[in-house]
């Protein structure tokens, strides 16, 4: 299970291993990782191997984030409100994947309904980073990140509304790819922020990410925001020929001199980023430093919080406990519903609902919700203006390595917020965006992110593919730091 999809396919085709043996190994490893990282809501102990065909994914086990509906398999979104919910249909993205012959072996934990970036709010407990179990994985795709990094299988599905694929990928030393909004159908994905939610994947190589998203994508009559990508062949068209491409990074976020009190670890992270930029330049790619209005950068995090709270409030109103979910107690339907929602949602979720409800009130809409939507356009237009000159934006992911779960090393500094949260730009614009590992600080992985214009997924993957080939972090398995 420490191999890539193409390597496993070769072994299967040459009868060096059977699909059942791979499935059995993934299940055994799932139990080991569950013990150490608490990565799974469900482990499918009775999963069976499949026929091996010429399809690269045939016979290969994988994981599914628990906010994808899976027919006949518990799908909780890591929430007590759905702790016993078993869907009667499967999400289109998962149906598409499974039509290629790959086999789900577990459902992975996540921050409740995707609302969190720490991997600490699942109803089944906290996910721990396989590199160092005292540290977080980040979220919301916490279980998928831990499982892929620990070598349970070569890939797991994930979803991304703020940075839920791309930040956990960095903290766990793997690849996280969020395609252009709508490339993969959201039908059957539990809605959180519908205007930002994007299906995607976590792998240990860019090639594997291309193979898996090729299999997940496609227009779907059940998702009106999906679009026809039949002329895009991510794996087939992967190339390291990227000389002549142009990238930019944002000066106000990356320049160390911009900060008055930079933590040492963040300084090393930014130094490491600049070393990676030298490697990018050695590929023949031009990289420029571009200045973006600080007011616009400062607006990113607030825009996300307001939009996220508002859309989540609306999306979760169907969770009543009547037709599905645990039934609440009480004498009236109001009492029963309130009991279900009070006991079912964590404090974090309740917080977001109340704030979302407030910003959506008619008297408050202009100040909060509408202005957040206006700021979203301003941020997106600013980046799109740069995409007229550049093939993509290249940036460091977060402020450094995975923080300690006990928050003892957590840095909260307004100055660092744009560095911590800039990946949300990718969701505001629906941009394709990929994180790949680019080194270590104190023996813990850090990541770099490449984001391009809408529909330009191939370009983004090609640049990541070429860069990955010049570094030594492809297909790495987590080695616990002692």
């Amino acid at each position, binding site marked *: 299970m420490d191999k890539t999809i193409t390597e496993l396919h070769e072994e299967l085709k040459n009868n060096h291993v059977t699909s059942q043996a791979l499935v059995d190994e993934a299940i055994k490893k799932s139990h080991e990782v569950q013990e150490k990282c608490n990565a799974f809501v469900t482990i499918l102990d009775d999963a069976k191997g499949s026929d091996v065909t010429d399809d690269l994914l045939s016979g290969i086990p994988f994981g599914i984030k628990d906010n994808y509906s899976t027919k006949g398999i518990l799908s909780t979104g890591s929430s007590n409100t759905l702790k016993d919910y078993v869907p009667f249909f499967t999400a289109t993205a998962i149906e598409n994947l499974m039509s290629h012959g790959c086999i789900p072996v577990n459902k992975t934990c996540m921050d409740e309904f995707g609302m969190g970036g720490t991997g600490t709010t699942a109803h089944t407990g906290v996910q721990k980073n396989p590199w160092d179990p005292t540290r977080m994985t980040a979220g919301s795709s916490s279980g998928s990140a831990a499982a892929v990094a620990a070598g349970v299988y070569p890939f797991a599905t994930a979803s991304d509304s703020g940075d839920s694929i791309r930040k956990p990928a960095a903290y766990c030393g793997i690849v996280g790819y969020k395609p*252009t909004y709508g490339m993969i159908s959201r039908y059957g994905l539990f809605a959180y922020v519908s205007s930002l939610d994007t299906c995607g994947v976590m792998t240990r190589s860019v090639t594997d990410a291309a193979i898996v998203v090729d299999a997940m994508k496609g227009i779907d009559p059940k998702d009106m925001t999906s679009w026809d990508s039949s002329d895009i062949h991510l794996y087939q068209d992967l190339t390291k020929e990227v000389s002549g491409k142009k990238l930019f990074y944002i000066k106000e976020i990356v320049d160390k001199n911009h900060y008055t009190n930079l933590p040492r670890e963040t300084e090393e992270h930014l130094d490491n980023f600049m070393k990676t930029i030298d490697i990018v330049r050695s590929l023949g790619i031009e990289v420029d430093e571009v200045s973006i209005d600080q007011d616009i950068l*400062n*607006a990113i995090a*607030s825009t996300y*919080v307001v939009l996220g709270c508002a859309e989540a409030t609306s999306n979760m109103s169907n969770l009543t406990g009547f037709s599905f979910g645990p039934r609440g107690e009480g004498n009236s339907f*109001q009492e029963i519903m*309130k009991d279900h*929602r009070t006991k079912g949602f964590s404090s974090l979720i309740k917080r977001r609902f109340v*704030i979302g409800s407030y910003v959506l*009130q008619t008297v408050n809409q202009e100040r909060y919700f509408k202005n957040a939507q206006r700021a979203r356009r301003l941020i997106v237009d600013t980046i799109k203006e740069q995409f007229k000159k550049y093939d993509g934006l290249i940036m460091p992911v977060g402020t450094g390595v995975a923080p300690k779960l006990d928050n003892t090393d957590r840095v909260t500094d307004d100055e660092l917020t744009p560095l911590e949260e800039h990946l949300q730009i990718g969701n505001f614009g629906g941009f394709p965006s990929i994180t790949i590992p680019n080194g270590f600080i104190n023996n813990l992985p850090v990541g770099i992110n490449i984001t391009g214009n809408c529909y330009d997924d191939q370009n983004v993957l090609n640049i990541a593919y070429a860069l990955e080939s010049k570094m030594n972090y492809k297909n790495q398995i987590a080695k616990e730091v002692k």
Partner: protein
Amino acid sequence: MEFNESTIDKLADLLMIGLTPEENKMILDEFAIIDKNIDKINNIKGIENIKPMTHCLDDFKCELREDIAENSPSIDDLLANCKKVDGREVEVPKVVE
């Protein structure tokens, strides 16, 4: 409408969720930060003249599908996750007295 403890409880009631005093305070504290940060948006020059963005893709076209009848999920499937069922229906307490 001022955002205070009483407002939070009223909103929570409308949302059909109960809050502990600790949760109420947590929301109050978090909102104070959001309220301060929202000014970072509201102070952007000319923000009021920008058209609110509701969808990622500029060229997105909302196209109506053909009106083709499809099989609906079976009643049994739909009720499989329901805790209280009466025949083909979800059982709920009496709503109209």
